[in-house]
């Protein structure tokens, strides 16, 4: 399967759905990736089962603050230079690249990089959604070292990281992003095909494309989309898809704490019957509750869409008065393992509860 320039808009739409409110606006990455693909032609989407055991791969994406990079326009140069520096450091060429996260703009950066470098991109990612920190990536959970990692900034300055652990690496790349105008491109988690296959959320790139195409072609009221969406998710790595609630946003407040957008939103049923649904936000939608009853929680996906069009709404765009529907989607099985829940359970986000899978909750 090949990804064409014309596929990218649908892919971006699907990636916003899977971003569960986070991931940033994919507009600039979409524009850039489309320009590159117009020049290079389509990119091969490598199926995980087709990756040879000895293939050499690495994850690539952008790290930084979208607000600041409004002035510092990205280019495909950064990705290409980071890839070449990584190959030089490791003493071998990359056979394919892979995404950090399918949710939001970072779903597109690896495609752009693969196109520039003339190599395939893997159909899969390291989150299956969007999550705020590097140690929450499947690659980190599988103990694949994040470094040596190479970062390239706007001026083609290249920085090598060799750190003791992913948490230190996360701190260091944030610091570099700040001193490089707010945004850098990094290549990290060098690994072989054999290792990757076990540390990957497979099929998410093609799924995001399929989902985006579905949403575009079936633009309409959210409840009517439930059955076909359930069929779509049942046939994917995710599985469950529930419609938790429909109603109107009657409150939304977030503020920036420690570099994250933290707060909550309250959604009242249209007929005002029953208690409203409250959703906690930390960059992403993390937990949906009705009164004391949890309806869904991280790492399962919570998605807020426009009631009339079913278009996903990012947390920064959510505001009072919007008529919305709330969906929940079961996370991939990987994130329900003990090793994963050690870093992505509700407790890791400051909630005093354990994770209960979506389908085991009354919703």
């Amino acid at each position, binding site marked *: 399967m090949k990804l064409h320039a014309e596929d990218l808009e649908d892919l971006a739409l699907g990636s916003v759905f899977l971003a569960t409110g986070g991931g940033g606006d994919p507009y600039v990455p979409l524009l850039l990736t489309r320009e590159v693909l117009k020049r290079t032609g389509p990119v091969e989407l490598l199926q995980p089962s087709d990756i040879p055991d000895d293939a050499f791969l690495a994850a690539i994406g952008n790290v930084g603050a979208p607000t600041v990079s*409004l*002035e510092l326009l990205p280019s495909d140069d950064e990705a290409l230079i980071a890839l070449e520096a990584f190959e030089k450091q490791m003493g071998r060429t990359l056979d394919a690249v892979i995404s950090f996260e399918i949710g939001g703009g970072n779903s597109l950066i690896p495609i752009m990089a693969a196109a520039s470098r003339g190599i395939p991109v893997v159909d899969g990612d390291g989150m299956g959604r969007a999550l705020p920190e590097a140690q929450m990536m499947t690659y980190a959970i599988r103990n694949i070292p994040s470094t040596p990692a190479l970062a390239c900034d*706007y*001026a083609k300055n290249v920085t090598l990281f060799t750190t003791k652990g992913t948490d230190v690496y996360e701190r260091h790349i944030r610091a570099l992003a700040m001193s490089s105008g707010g945004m850098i491109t990094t290549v990290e988690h060098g690994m072989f095909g054999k290792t990757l296959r076990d540390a990957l959320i497979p099929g998410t790139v093609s799924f995001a494309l399929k989902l985006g195409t579905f949403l575009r072609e079936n633009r309409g009221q959210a409840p009517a989309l439930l059955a076909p969406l359930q069929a779509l998710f049942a046939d994917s790595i995710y599985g469950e898809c529930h419609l938790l609630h429909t109603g109107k946003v009657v409150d939304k407040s977030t503020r*920036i704490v420690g570099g*994250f957008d933290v707060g909550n939103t309250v959604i009242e049923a249209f007929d005002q019957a029953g208690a409203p649904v409250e959703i906690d936000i930390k960059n992403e939608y993390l937990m949906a509750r009705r009164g004391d009853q949890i309806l869904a929680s991280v790492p399962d996906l919570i998605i807020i869409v426009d009631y009339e069009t079913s278009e996903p709404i990012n947390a920064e765009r959510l505001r009072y*008065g*919007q008529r919305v529907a709330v969906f929940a989607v079961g996370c991939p099985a990987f994130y329900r393992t003990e090793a994963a829940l050690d870093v992505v359970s509700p407790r890791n986000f400051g909630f005093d509860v354990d994770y209960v899978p979506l389908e085991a909750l009354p919703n």
Partner: protein
Amino acid sequence: MRIGIDVGGTHTDAVIMDGNHVVTSTKVLTSADVMEGVANALDTVLSNSGLPTDQIQSVMIGTTQFTNAIVERRQLAKTGVFRLCLPSGRGLPPMVDWPDDIADAVGRHAYTLHGGYLYDGWPVADLDMDEIDRAIADAKSKGLKNFAVSSAFSPMNAAPEELVAKRLRAAIPDAHITCSQSFGRLGLMERENAAILNATLLQFADSVVSAFLSALRLRHLTCPVFISQNDGTLMNADFVRAFPALTFASGPTNSLRGAMLLTGLDDAIVVDIGGTTSDIGVLQAGFPRESNSVIKVGGVRTNFRMPDIQAIGLGGGSLVTNDGNTLGPQSVGHKLTSEGLVFGGSTLTATDIIVASGREEIGDPGAVAHLSETLVETARQKMLTILDRGIDMMKPGAVQMPVILVGGGAVLVTGDLKAAARVHRPEHAGVANAIGAAIAQVGGESEKIVSYQAIAREDAIAELTKEAEARAKDSGAQDDSLRVVDIEETEVPYMGQETMRVRVKVIGDLAFKPAGTSA
């Protein structure tokens, strides 16, 4: 006394105002030659009022001509774009996401050069004078006269843009230049687009302003002339010659401001109901609430300060289904007066429903006597529901707010709106736009990213206020009337504690010259 004129796509309105009192008003059709309509409107209000022209202290004009030129791709000059941002941004050259027809109309003459700054003041790259001069020589050889100049973080450091503008002017003395820093806000692509749209209109702006001035001079109106801009404040005529793009959203803004004057309400929802849509806006402290999202003009993303307007598909000409359950968004539009049932046509419209309900008498009520009571009541409730939802989406919070109805379709609203604390239907609502233009004030704003660890918050705000005040005075504000109306602080994520994007907006009264003195 002031004259307010609003040049819209369909109608040109004019009013004479004595303070906050409407002396006389008129509404004429906008002619193909826009100035003819303006002249008609002016002559009508002047003769109706019987006032000698030396009693008029100023004339305020709101016009959609520049928006329409962009939307219709008319009157656009070929424009060279100089952007200083290399080595960043090579992958996204100027106009990369523009619709083809407008990119072609403006020409695709882009020069991407080294320079610009990061958020913290560090240079992206040093300027390369040879590179700049080569680009200017190329533009000159192509015969370009219009230029837009942009550079990374120019709202914080505009030196690179100013340098390029100076060299352009030296090489091409009759150049028309717009620097992106004039459009303040952060977001290089959107700010640059604003500068290009502005630059491409400069000759047209010059001819429009000259035509306005000569129409006024012909009537011996020698008082100062102002044109209203997007945020409900005014600019003087010479300023418009340099910044025509700042008028892009003056229509809806003037409508909101006019509604404020007519009701005396500073905080309200304003619903302007036309033939096809209802435009819902919000007055906050007497000014339109501005939109947070990216505004597209003629398909081009820009960073203009524009009012937050929600357009919903309900107007006097909206089509109604036979069961009354669906209204709009399809509409007979301006053909209402020939196609609506009460006007002898054969299409069931929202206006017919209101006439059938006995709440308004328009056209021939006999033509809708056959409509069933159930249909009429279902459709009428549906209209209120649609408006209620639209209003609810625009309210800043769960509190009820007063709603002001303006525009020809205001008759559609009969009875109360659930979302409204109270519904106001002011007199003269039909010329709210011209009234809004007539009462406009003068504003200025300034924006920067600052670290409150490097500079104390009060000092940062004081500095920005000074800059905003200087801009307001440049636009014609009276020094002692200036006041800060908005301080917006947005924390910049990931950039460490207390890094803020701060924006200060000030407004003030016009520095009036006494009646009878010349401008």
